[in-house]
Every structure is written in C-alpha cells, then in structure tokens.
C-alpha cells in the first residue's frame, strides 16, 4: 500500500522544508503511523513486532559481549568466565544474549506456523514469504556460529559435526567434501582459525538479517497484511491505522513476551542450554551424547533418520529448502486454514510431527525415537509435496465472509446491532 497515495501533509515550515528534501516523516507516517491494517488481526500477528524486539536485543547485548569476548581457541572459554564473573553485569548481559537466541527462535516458529495456517505465503505475498525463509536460514547460521564462540565441549563438537556435513560431498566427488571442509575450518580440525572466522561472521550476519528484515517489511507493505480470514481488504471499513491500534496491541504482547524471557534469564538461565558447554573444548574427547540447541532438534532428527550420511544431509537441507517452494505447492484458492476443514487437520498433524521430531532429536537415535524420527520425517515431506497440493484440489472450503468488516461484526454481533445500554 506504500505504492498507493500518501496520507501525510506537512504542517509547519520545518516539516515542509524537510519533506521536499528527505521525506522521512512522510515515509514513517505512511508505513507506520497511518499504515492501513486489517482490523481483525489477532495475537498471532504480534510476533512480527516481537521478532523485531528480539533482533534488537541480540544486537545490543551482542555488541556489548564483543567488547569483552576474546575470539581465540586458547582464550575464548576463559573470556566467557571473565564475562560471567568479573565484568559488571556481564552475567546478565550474557544470559540475556544466550536466552535471547532461544526466545528469538520461539518467536520465529510461532510466526512461521501462523503464516502457514493463514496461507500468508500465497499470492501476492510469495516474495514476503521467501524473504522470511531467508531470514530464518540466516538466523540458524548466526545461532550456530554464536554457539561455537564460548568454546565449551558442545560448542566444539557441534562445530565439528556441523562443518562435517560438507564432507558428505566426498560421496559425490571424492575430495570435494574434504576440500570444502578444510576451507571452512581453515585448518585440519576446528581450532583457532575457525573460532576467529566464526566470530567475524557471527558479528556480521545479524546486520545482514536486519537488511533482509527491511526488505521483508517492504514486501509486506506492498500488498499489506494478510489476516485471519485470509480475504483481501476491500476498503477503508476493513482497516484501522497501525497507530495506535496495533502499536498498543504489539506493545502489550511484547511486554508479556518479555515476562517469559525474564523468567528464563533470572530463574532458569541454563535450563535451555547444555551443562557440557561449561566444560572447555577438548578435541580428543567427544561427549557421550551430542545434542544441538533445542531449536535445531527437528532437523537433527531428520539428519539421523536415515542410515546413509549423504541422504541424511540432503534431507536435512531439503527440509529447509522445501519452505522456499511452499507458495507454489499449495493449490487451494482459499488462504486461511480456518475455512479449510480438511487442510486444517493435516496442519495440526504437521505441528505435531514437528514437535515429535524435536523430541526424537534429543534422544539417542535408536528404538522408538528412531522410528518416530522416521515417521516424522516422512510426514514432514509428504505434507509439503503431496498433501498441500492435493488437498487444495478436492477439499470444499467453508463459506468465506463477504468482507473483513462483516466478519468482525458477525463475531461481535451484539455490540454492532444493539445500542449500548
């Protein structure tokens, strides 16, 4: 809608002068304050704002940590202990950054499931969705790199195992994988060269994310928000200005989110982490049970679901890659799953499959956990490449409301029809 007409009129001499040189206030007005937003957005829609908050928290705490952290195989672990014990409020800043990564992923998962449920990836929002998947991918890279920095046992072995994914390409062209592996590590093993480059990239990527977030919001503001009914905005009666309606709603949700965040930071700062990461990296001893951070567990389960190394690695990357094609995999004309009784049930199963994969990823890959990982992996892919296209073709959707305004009135019927008493 930023392509449409502007609703801003400068009122005084200064704003008129500024507007004809750098129309900053106009851009803010048209894209934030007065941005026409569907009136029916629910709380699932507040996670965009929550994600922006998370990114800001990671940037601020990260830059502060970087002032004390030493990127070297000899000193990294000690510098983390120094941050925890000696730096003023170092423990707080580090715990916020550590748990901030988890909160960031929690929010992004809610945000993504929301998009899948309401069909927000469908035309005209394909680019918006793809930019989101790119952000998610960059987040995973950033979090992986960050997790190696404290140079604990999990940092080291996580970095070893994950960089080793690339050695699978030796099965395609002998020597290719090992070449890429040495290139990534800058040595024959994960060591000083690796921790230095991982730190440089860990510092860089969040700013790249910020850039892609800008494009993501731009791509959002051309078609405007989708909404829980999935039908298009038909006119001004369907929208309210972003401010104050959604600044308040987003602000309220962010405040609740911060409470959850604070519970982790102050009462269970290491609950989501792994105790082995407080043991300094030892290249000669692998911990008995390597597990990644919780937000990677479903992918880890997919990796281990098949006995062949190359297939495992390809499936794991494929699980992310398939998300890029979702806009073209769903052949239903109706966006919102609220009006798609059959798809909705498959969607619920999909959420369950993801959770089950997460559970299986934390267990040793054997017995029931392995079986669940295999069933989960199967469903994960079948959901995208078969269920999504096919269900859209034969399912009879429920009747869609005529407009967002009518849908809102139907839901709160009394208030609209009867005068207040």
């Amino acid at each position, binding site marked *: 809608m930023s392509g449409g007409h502007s609703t801003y009129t400068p009122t005084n001499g200064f704003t008129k002068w500024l507007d004809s040189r750098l129309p900053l206030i106009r851009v803010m007005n048209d894209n934030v304050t007065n941005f026409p937003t569907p009136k029916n957005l629910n709380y699932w829609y507040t996670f965009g704002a929550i994600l922006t908050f998370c990114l800001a928290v990671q940037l601020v705490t990260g830059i502060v940590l970087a002032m004390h952290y030493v990127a070297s195989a000899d000193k990294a672990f000690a510098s983390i202990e120094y941050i925890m014990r000696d730096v003023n409020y170092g423990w707080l800043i580090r715990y916020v950054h550590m748990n901030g990564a988890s909160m960031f992923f929690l929010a992004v998962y809610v945000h993504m499931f929301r998009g899948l449920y309401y069909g927000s990836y469908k035309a005209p929002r394909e680019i918006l969705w793809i930019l989101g998947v790119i952000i998610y991918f960059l987040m995973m890279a950033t979090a992986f790199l960050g997790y190696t920095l404290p140079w604990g046992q999990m940092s080291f*072995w996580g970095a070893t195992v994950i960089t080793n994914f690339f050695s699978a390409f030796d099965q395609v062209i002998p020597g290719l994988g090992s070449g890429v592996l040495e*290139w*990534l590590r*800058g*040595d024959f*093993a994960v060591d000083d060269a690796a921790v230095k*480059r991982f730190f440089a990239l860990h510092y860089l990527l969040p700013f790249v994310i910020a850039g892609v977030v800008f494009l993501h919001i731009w791509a959002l503001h051309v078609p405007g928000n989708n909404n829980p009914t999935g039908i298009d905005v038909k006119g001004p009666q369907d929208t309210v200005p972003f401010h104050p309606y959604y600044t308040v709603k987003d602000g309220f949700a962010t405040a609740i989110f911060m409470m959850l965040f604070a519970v982790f930071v102050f009462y269970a700062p290491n609950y989501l982490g792994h105790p082995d990461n407080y043991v300094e990296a030892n290249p000669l001893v692998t911990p008995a049970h390597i597990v990644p951070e919780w937000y990677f567990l479903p992918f880890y389960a997919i990796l*281990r679901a098949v006995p062949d*190394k190359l297939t495992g690695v390809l499936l794991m990357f494929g699980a992310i890659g398939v998300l890029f094609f979702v806009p073209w995999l769903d052949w239903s004309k109706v966006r919102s799953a609220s009006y798609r009784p059959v798809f909705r049930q498959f969607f619920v199963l999909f959420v369950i499959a993801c959770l089950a994969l997460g559970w299986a990823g934390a267990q040793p*890959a054997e017995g029931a956990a392995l079986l669940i990982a295999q069933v989960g992996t199967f469903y994960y892919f079948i959901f995208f490449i078969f269920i999504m296209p096919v269900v859209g073709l034969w399912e009879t959707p429920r009747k869609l409301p005529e407009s967002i305004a009518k849908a809102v009135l139907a839901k709160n019927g009394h208030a609209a029809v009867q005068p207040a008493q």
Partner: protein
Amino acid sequence: MAHSPSETVNRRDFIYIMSATVSAAGAAVAAWPLIDQMNPSAAAQALSSTEVDLSAIQPGQIVTVTWRKQPVFIRRRTEKEIAEAHEGDTASDLKDPQPDAQRVFKPEWLVLVGICTHLGCVPSSQVRGDYDGWFCPCHGSHYDTSGRIRKGPAPKNLAVPNYEFVSDTKIVIGEGKTPAETSKEHTA
C-alpha cells in the same frame, strides 16, 4: 538496446561484451585471494608430522596422540585382535572393503586417524562396540579391530595416515607412505 538503426552486430556491441568480460574476469581475480585466505595457512600446514615412541605401549592398549590437531589412535593389537581383523577381511558387512594387510605395516601396530568418518566425532576406545574395535557414540558407528566400518551410518573406514617406522619402537606420523600405498608398490 538498439545502438544503431541496423539490427546487425556492431562495434558498440563488441565494446559492450568485451568490457563486461574484462570486468567479470577482474572480479574473479580479485575474489580469489579473498576465498583462498580461508584455506589452512602455512602455519597450520607446517604442523604436519608427529613423532611417537611406542616402547611404553602394552599389548591390548590404545593410546591417542595428536597429529595436525587431530586425534590419532595407536593400538598394539593382541593375537586375538589380529585374528579378528583377518577374519573380517572376508566379512559380508564391510561397507568399504579393504584387507587388514593394507592397513598396517606390522600386524601388531594399528595406526588410525581417530575421527569418525560419519560426522567427525572421536570414536570411543573404552567402549569398543560390536566388533571389538571402536564405537562412535555420536550416531552409533561400530568399527572392527582393523578400524573398518561394520555397522552404523559412517560411510568409510577410519583413515590410515601416512607414517613410517624410524626404528623398531618409534614412528613418525605424517612422513612416508600409507600401508596401502606401500603394498601397491610391492605388488606392482
């Protein structure tokens, strides 16, 4: 972009293609140092040999030394372990078949890079797995007493580094050839 009224290729098209080509080549040349700096540096390459004194190692014992910052297992095999390795030569579950004779210089001494060929964990020398060799706890790979993969997701045998015996009780890892290379020369 029509530069001239005629549709034929003209000088301007030529200049356009040439300048684009030269720019692309220039960009590629400039990118190479930026890519290559990521490869192991001369300092990392220089640490490439390790000398090990074998005299203190008892039969049945496995010691771990480091070579190029990576663990290397040195196992003084017992008669039983050597026999198991030979039996394994003809086993049907070998994923990466190689006779034991091509993996050692002297049957008593087995020298291996201690990195699981699946995703790079260090297999355990305490928990020796179903084949009495090594067990990798990360995703459950079992290696035999010749370091060959017998069960689990790893695709290849544990690698044998190049090394040489400089005396009866001393080896230098990273120098000389691998046993497989040497045995090929003998048969050739």
